[in-house]
């Protein structure tokens, strides 16, 4: 190898340094895209929501019980939509929390590694199925073949079928996060309990589960947030009737399916129908963001450090 002159060597160092700092600028700007997106989300929703609230007062929006933005005589009370969203999400949690926690406990404490390695990806698949498929399932299978058997008067579009399907959709969230929490409980705790003569049932429900409780609670909160944002199932199987009702057998419109309805119809830019999309979207974002924040906090704060 020929000798390298100092001059050439320094030049190569400088070149490498330049490439390095250029590269840093590139990767930094890529990272900033997500931050920028959050800013764009907030400003876009705020600007159009402000325009919306020139038509309706915030008080009416939050406390009104009639939502007739798409009709000639307009009322701007979000409560019917909010109620439907909360109702379907509660039904969803009533499915996914018990089934998910049971599955997580079984997989983490009872199942052998082979069963676990097969069952976990299969459950994971449930969240990979496009939601339009769950909508089809709710409308054509669950309501006519399952719900109608027990409940004759149930409407074709109903909140119950929507909630049940969203429950299936959110099941993997509960399983994954609860399972992580259970797995994180150190084995010493189990062994100590056994050495004191505990039966497995006591070890699982009196030692391991309480130790993992924060993660289990968080999994339910995060699943609830996910359930509130689900759109296609509600739009297909819930119907487009904005009514304030607590009867899960009735057709009712959630916040997300209202957005879907406006999107399928024609809402020209600048009209109050168009602006209402942003107000509803903003409220939905605020609620789900709060829930996610609480969920992540619960995981972090209550986490017992071993």
């Amino acid at each position: 190898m020929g000798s390298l002159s100092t001059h050439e060597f320094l030049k190569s160092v400088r070149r490498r340094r330049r490439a390095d700092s250029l590269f840093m600028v590139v990767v930094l700007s890529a990272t900033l895209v997500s931050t920028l997106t959050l800013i764009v989300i907030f400003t876009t929703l705020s600007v159009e929501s402000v325009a919306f609230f020139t038509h309706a007062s915030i008080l009416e929006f939050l406390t009104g019980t009639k939502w007739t933005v798409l009709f000639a005589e307009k009322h701007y009370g979000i409560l019917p939509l909010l109620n439907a969203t909360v109702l379907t999400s509660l039904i969803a949690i009533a499915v996914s929390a018990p089934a998910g926690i049971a599955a997580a406990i079984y997989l983490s404490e009872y199942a052998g590694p082979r069963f676990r390695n097969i069952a976990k990806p299969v459950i994971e698949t449930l969240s990979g199925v496009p939601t339009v498929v769950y909508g089809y399932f709710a409308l054509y299978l669950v309501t006519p073949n399952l719900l109608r058997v027990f409940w004759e008067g149930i409407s074709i579009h109903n909140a119950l079928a929507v909630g049940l399907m969203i429950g299936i959709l959110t099941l993997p969230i509960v399983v994954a996060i609860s399972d992580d929490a259970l797995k994180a409980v150190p084995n010493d705790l189990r062994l100590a309990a056994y050495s004191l003569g505990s039966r497995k049932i006591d070890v699982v429900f009196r030692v391991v589960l309480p130790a993992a409780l924060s993660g289990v609670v968080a999994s339910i909160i995060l699943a609830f947030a996910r359930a509130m944002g689900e759109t296609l199932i509600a739009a297909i199987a819930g119907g487009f009737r904005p009514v304030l009702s607590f009867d899960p057998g009735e057709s009712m419109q959630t916040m997300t399916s209202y957005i879907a309805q406006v999107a399928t119809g024609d809402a020209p830019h600048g009209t109050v129908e168009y602006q209402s999309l942003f107000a509803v979207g903003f409220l939905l974002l605020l609620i789900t963001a709060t829930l996610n924040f609480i969920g992540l906090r619960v995981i972090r704060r209550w986490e017992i450090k071993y």
Partner: protein
Amino acid sequence: MGDQILIRDQVDRRRSDLKRWLDRIVPVVLSVGVFFGVTVLAALVVDVVLEGSHRLSLNLITNYPSANPAEAGMRSAILGTIATVGLSAVICIPLSIASAIYLIEYAAGKRWAEVLRYNIANLAGVPSVVFGVVGLGFLVYGLGVGRSVLAGAFTLAILTLPYVTVTCVEAIKTVPEDLKFGAYALGATRFQVVRSIILPRALPMMLTGGILGISRAIGEAAPILVISGLLFIREDPTSLFDRFTVMPLQLFNWISRPQPAFRELSAAGIIVLLLILLALNSLVIYMRYRLYRRLEAT
């Protein structure tokens, strides 16, 4: 005194019998939770196949949508999905890889990195329909992109960004520290370490994350519904500024029609969609297997 001891003994034994019984029955009850999910998935697939398999034909893929269910197909929707999701992957995957590199190699340990990570976690929690609403306000009308393939692709790219970034971060973490330190000790710059140490080793795993992001984007209907509306399109998308529809939206359209023929058609369409997702996921499993073998070998 003696009587009391006897009673305590009986109580203990009874409790112990109960526990023994519980110990047998509880795992069975809990496993129902596992089989519940699996059963629903199986029922779903069986129902769709029974309902739609006889409608599967090439027409479904090559024909345009039609008011006549006998000849309706989803050609424009399939091409729309390929264009939109393909473009979104081209945007999302490099962005995710770059973000992951910055987070791990440049900002690691700094408070700043925590802030950025927190932003990404927040982005992952935004409901997908809200991305659609923002895409409509910001891209379609704000920037004047129109209800186009471009607007849809950007929205899907941002939607999948947090998921793909997280897998890319995990991929970089699998690269042994020793190799990096060795390179740094020889005077390599960060760029050189990233290019010749990290990327060659982490890229396959990053790509599996990218494919999972793609399969998620294929199934997303809500944001595209808001951006594109529910359209009846009988043309192939040819430019980035064309209006478009995607497969889940075409299915939504068919499902919403009351005629039984459309119900069968939507079931057949669902089979096609699920087959595509199955193929993508099998690819991921195969890639992971290869990766695992390679890691075992070294």
